[in-house]
């Protein structure tokens, strides 16, 4: 652990770190373009120059490893002058596009020249090198060669991470440009990441282009829910509308990346098919009712059926799209307050679900592991058992939480099972299953909900509400807590309370809280992740 001094402050860091990383520990930003922590060191932009005692020349921080006793200056006049010079070089051939550039507001070129006051004072040359402005690279990405500063982050990403090498640098000197290799398209499962690594506006996302100025958007930390990997993301949104997902770095989950499908997943979460109000089936169609009416109705039906047929006539199925908090409350409601044993978890993915050996998992649910850990996928009652009981007629009321059973169980089976059962559906969108519903309780999607998911590897990760659910929909944990209270259970004020309680049910997670989960989540110890199901 070498101890060194940066800008007059001492810091002790692990061996092997470079000076950009070491400075970060002191919250000192060494300006840089080509360095990216997820890629090999290229050292081409020369922006990260720093002064090191006993070295005659300035050194690039990205390729300088920390050593014991090193004395580094990141803001000396010599450093500032050198960085201003590099910026000036980068700007000679750069078009002045900022007003129409999508990167404006998150452009490192723009940021630094503001910082350094290089206002294109010396622009004696009229003729800039002309390159191509709108190059269609593939389904996700557009390239503007003139804005490119040739940092080679995109090519390194494609060489080193996806190993697909669609892009290359062609020509020499100031004629250099990024382009596709002949016959190639930038069409791999992770192509959108090149937009994130590009420090300027050269690579832009077709999906996000011209949709919004970034400075109008809010950012909320979250998790991608499209598969069990649980890539860490930021949701960019404004007034309840989402504009994009971008990966948020987590060394233990997704490093700096996410897949293209996950990136576009936000669109699926804000479709026209959202359910906006609690619904009760009328003579022909659904009728909107108030939450109080809907909840009262469900509670009275549960009470009535239990009195008439016993608790065993009530059953529930919960999908692996539900948060741990929802699973816990759902399971408690049915087993503890109602007293039935017929509670099943269901984690369904299409048979041919895509997956690879990098991030994408064949399990297309964010919380299969959580369901299992909470005891709902452990060879006890299965969704098939519940449906069989319904078909036999022993189950009278079925609660279905956050799962469309039609693709999961097949339409015939479902028709046979649900034909004569009273169905209560808790979900975000209309689906094949809501067709069978007598009562529909609209809940929030992941971006609208506070909660946790446990990813495929047993890492518990937090999602945070970016905005409130649309219409009268409510976060699922709130709906379940409300129902629980009506059935004689606890009134939870927040999902964090629910989490603290459920965490303490298992030795593996005892003592965990939201604040302990932080931004990167917590890995549960291998082997002992399974908690006992909530007991009666």
């Amino acid at each position, binding site marked *: 652990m070498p101890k060194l001094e940066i800008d007059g402050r001492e810091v002790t860091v692990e061996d092997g770190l470079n000076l950009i990383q070491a400075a970060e520990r002191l919250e000192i930003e060494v300006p840089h373009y080509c360095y990216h922590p997820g890629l090999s*060191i*290229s*050292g*081409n*932009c*020369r*922006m990260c*120059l720093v002064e090191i005692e006993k070295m005659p*020349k*300035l050194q*690039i921080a990205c*390729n300088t490893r920390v050593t014991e006793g090193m004395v580094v200056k990141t803001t000396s006049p010599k450093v500032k002058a*050198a960085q201003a*010079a*590099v910026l*000036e*070089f*980068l700007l*000679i*051939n750069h078009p002045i596009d900022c007003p129409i550039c999508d990167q404006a507001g998150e452009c490192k070129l723009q940021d630094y020249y503001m910082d350094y006051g290089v206002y294109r004072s*010396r622009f*004696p*040359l009229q*003729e800039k*090198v002309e390159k191509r402005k709108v190059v269609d690279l593939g389904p996700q990405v557009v390239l503007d060669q003139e804005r490119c*500063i*040739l940092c*080679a982050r995109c090519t390194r990403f494609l060489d080193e991470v996806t190993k697909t090498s669609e892009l*290359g*640098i062609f*020509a*020499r*000197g*100031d*004629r*250099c440009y990024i382009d596709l290799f002949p016959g190639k398209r930038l069409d791999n499962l992770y192509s959108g990441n090149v937009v994130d690594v590009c420090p300027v506006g050269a690579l832009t996302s077709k999906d996000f282009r011209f949709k919004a100025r970034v400075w109008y958007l809010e950012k909320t930390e979250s998790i991608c829910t499209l598969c069990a990997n649980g890539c860490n993301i930021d949701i960019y949104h404004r007034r309840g509308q989402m504009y994009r997902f971008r990966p948020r770095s987590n060394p233990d989950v997704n490093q700096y990346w996410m897949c293209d499908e996950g990136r576009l997943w936000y669109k699926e979460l804000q479709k026209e098919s959202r359910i906006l109000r609690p619904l009760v089936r009328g003579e022909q169609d659904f009728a909107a009712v108030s939450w109080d009416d809907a909840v009262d109705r469900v509670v009275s039906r549960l009470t009535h059926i239990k009195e008439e047929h016993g608790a065993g006539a009530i059953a529930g199925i919960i999908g692996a799209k539900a948060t741990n908090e929802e699973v816990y409350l759902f399971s408690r409601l049915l087993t503890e307050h109602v007293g039935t044993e017929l509670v099943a978890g269901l984690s369904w993915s299409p048979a041919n679900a895509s997956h690879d050996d990098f991030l994408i998992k064949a399990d297309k649910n964010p919380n299969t592991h959580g369901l299992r850990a909470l005891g709902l996928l452990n060879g006890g009652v299965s969704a098939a058992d519940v449906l069989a009981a319904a078909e036999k007629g022993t189950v009278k009321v079925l609660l279905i939480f956050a799962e469309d059973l039609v693709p999961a169980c097949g339409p015939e089976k479902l028709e046979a099972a649900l034909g004569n059962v009273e169905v209560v559906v808790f979900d975000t969108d209309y689906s094949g299953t809501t067709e069978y519903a007598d009562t529909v309780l609209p809940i929030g999607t992941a971006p609208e909900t506070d909660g946790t998911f446990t990813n495929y590897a047993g890492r518990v990760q937090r999602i945070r509400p970016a905005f409130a659910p649309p219409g009268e929909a409510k976060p699922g944990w709130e709906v379940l807590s409300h129902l629980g209270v009506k059935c004689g259970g606890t009134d939870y004020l927040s999902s964090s309370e629910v989490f603290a309680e459920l965490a303490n049910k298992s030795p593996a997670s005892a003592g965990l809280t939201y604040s302990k989960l932080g931004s990167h989540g917590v890995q549960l110890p291998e082997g002992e992740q399974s908690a006992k199901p909530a007991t009666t």
Partner: protein
Amino acid sequence: MSERVLLRHLDVPNIRKLDVYLAQGGYEAARKALTTLKPEEVTEQVKASNLRGRGGAGFVAGMKWGFLPKDSPKPVYLCCNADESEPGTFKDRAIIEWNTHILLEGILIAAYAIKSHTAYIYIRGEFALGAKHLEEAIAEAYAKGFLGKNIFGIGYDLDVYVHRGAGAYICGEETGLIESLEGKRAYPRIKPPFPAVYGLFGSPTIVQNVETLSCVPSIMKNGPAWFKAIGPETGPGPKIYCVSGHVEKPGLYELPMGMPLRAVIYDYAGGIRGGKKLKAVMPAGSSFPVLRPDEIDVNMDFDSMRKINAFLGTAGIIVMDEDTCMVRALEIVDRFYHHESCGQCSPCREGTGWLHKLLVRLEEGNGQAEDIDLMNKISDNMMGNTVCVLADAAAMPTQSYISKFRDEFLAHVTLGRCPLKKNGATHQHAA
């Protein structure tokens, strides 16, 4: 020094043929080295000879070999840098084409010394004849057992491959060369790590210039003391001076290291063409500062040149007479670097183009006085600040031309044309 070593083909016709080379005592040095000395001892002798690299930087060869990791499990590679692309430099080509076996013998001894079993000769693509002669000589050497398996019966194996470049100056930079050999774009690598530790295919690698390697057989044959006695002790040996430009007898001159520059120009190359006056000399190829006529009483060796803020470089001596426009001359130099910058580093990629464009403008008579200081400033900002030294190679001549011939640059501004041209005629440009 009586006998020519490196340009021996001028004295012995057909020495590129193995039988002729053998009749001249060829491969005896290699035999002696391989059969009587341990690799470490060969390295010691080369180190003791003070042989310094002839590719431009003048690093002590034996010392570089000593940087190889001692117990690396990886193979060691030898790369012969035959990419010779420095302007005004054409010495390696002569050795390759006409004294081919001395290079192969040097490669054999050097490879043995560094315990390498694979050597690559990276040859400039345009050197078609050189590549052909190399292939022929290599075939001859294999046939006679000087290459291949169990050389001289000592159980040592060496394979030599010729790799032809595709035409870029930057492939001569040693790490650009390595990248190119690996089949990639010749982007020089950041150092550290240096090739001796992490080179070709990630293995320890020694890159050495053609002329450097061609000196090695004579060191083995005559001993380090003999070598050290040729010219200055700190950088001795036979040396090829490439003289081009406005002299009576341009060409290659093999002389001891440390010859006075004036003697090379006037005594050997016959002085300035047509009895004209000398205006300027670039003594080291195009990558280093230019000299004025009052600066040519300097000895052409690494250390003497450094004392006057100049360099020996490749000893590519470009002579310019009094009719030369220095703005145009610099425009040509910087056009070359603009063309050849690999484009990786911001200061070099943008700086070389910026310099060149300013020079074109100045030369066409459209420049401003501030452009001259601007070029100085741009050069300052390029220097010492990039992955390889190509940026410095553009900046150094630029600054020296401006400081040593400032009046001529200013005259282009005030007259709005080249003062050496009549009727406002401008020069022709290739963009």
